[in-house]
């Protein structure tokens, strides 16, 4: 059985090429994974996400990946969840009422208020709550209409503001879940990916 140093879960989401390119620039060869077995075997796993909450959850359940993912996360194995990949860690989303998320975080994602432009598209400043985390202060690129207002207590959160204060990222050991796109966040994002890699 071949080792998978870095598996990127193919959830049928849109911007896989950007995620793959970011790791290749780091000198890492990512491997696309499409089933629960490969998902369990990967040393490090990326859960990317561009799309819609309901569709991605349906896809994860069809692949049999939802349970394997929950198991990985509960066991503290290396994980990078991006954007919608971050949101599916919540219990549910206002984007798809009635569809259950993985429930790692207790929160339900909400839509940004009408007082700001939705979707949030652009670079927002991220403020971590701990100094020695993988996430450092800086600007990250966001592309989202929904947000989570709190992460689980066992995770260290970073915050940003867009009409409301929301969770920009949550981390715990070698597990990092970002609402923003590190793969699109220039040098700051590349440095973040490297710190995550080094922590795994």
């Amino acid at each position, binding site marked *: 059985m071949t080792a998978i140093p870095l598996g990127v879960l193919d959830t049928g989401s849109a911007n896989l090429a950007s995620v793959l390119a970011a790791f290749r620039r780091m000198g890492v060869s990512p491997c696309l994974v499409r089933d629960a077995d490969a998902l369990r075997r990967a040393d490090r796993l990326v859960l990317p996400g561009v799309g819609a909450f309901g569709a991605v959850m349906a896809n994860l359940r069809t692949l049999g990946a939802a349970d394997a993912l929950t198991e990985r996360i509960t066991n503290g194995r290396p994980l990078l969840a991006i954007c919608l990949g971050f949101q599916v860690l919540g219990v549910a989303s206002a984007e798809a009422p009635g569809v259950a998320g993985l429930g790692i975080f207790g929160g339900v994602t909400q839509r940004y208020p009408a007082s700001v432009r939705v979707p949030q598209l652009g670079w*927002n400043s991220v403020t971590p709550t701990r100094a020695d985390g993988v996430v450092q202060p800086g600007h990250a690129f966001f592309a989202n209409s929904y947000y989570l207002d709190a992460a689980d207590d066992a995770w260290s959160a970073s915050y940003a503001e867009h009409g409301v204060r929301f969770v920009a990222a949550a981390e715990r050991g070698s597990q990092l879940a970002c609402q923003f796109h590190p793969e699109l966040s220039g040098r700051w994002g590349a440095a973040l990916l490297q710190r995550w890699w080094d922590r795994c």
Partner: protein
Amino acid sequence: MLTCRVIPCLDTTDGRVVKGVRFQHLRDAGAPVELAARYEGEGADELVLLDVTATTSSRGHALDTVRAIRRVLAIPLTVGGGIRGVADAVAVLEAGADKVAVNTAAYRDPALITALAERFGAQCVTLSIDAAAAGDDWMVVVRAGTENTLRSVVDWARTGEALGAGEILLTSMDRDGTRSGYHLALLQSVASQVGLPVVASGGARTPQDMIAAIAAGADAVLAASMFHDGDTTIAETKQALRSAGVAVRL
């Protein structure tokens, strides 16, 4: 807080960056990958890549250029030109785009906007609108400015938002390449009528033009000639915006 984006635009045809005036008289402006890397290094917040002859010559977007740019680019890439259906969007996304910009095909078949938004999320779908002045109003023009639809721009922008678009890329055809400043009244009328982010395009010459566009309601400012011809760099532009009190990423 969210910062204002400064977006260089690469109009391409046959693998080269070109730039015209009012969509006509295209001249060579460089190699796409080199320009993309340079602009990211200077602090570009995003890059827009438009294949300007794909629709009028009835071919798809040049995917090799998208792939080559993706290899070097660590900021968002929006790709437009020749996106006729979901399959074309999938192809440019797989090649390395983060967002797709639709224009003529979405006008002809508005259901395309909804189909793309349902599959990839609204944040992935940029509705590109080319506007031509008509008295006190603006009309939507399509097919790279060769066909005036006589449809009101504001009406089409609102419809696009309702159908699921995630952003409006609003180009004043009258100002395109003229370096006479953005069309502020056009920007104001659209930005005040939609809840989506609006990208100002067409006519930028100086950072002051960008400051005026942001004051008129734009969330992002796009320029081509101004940067290609070396009037100013993106870094200088963003410094000027910050000095004027505009939130930017430096």
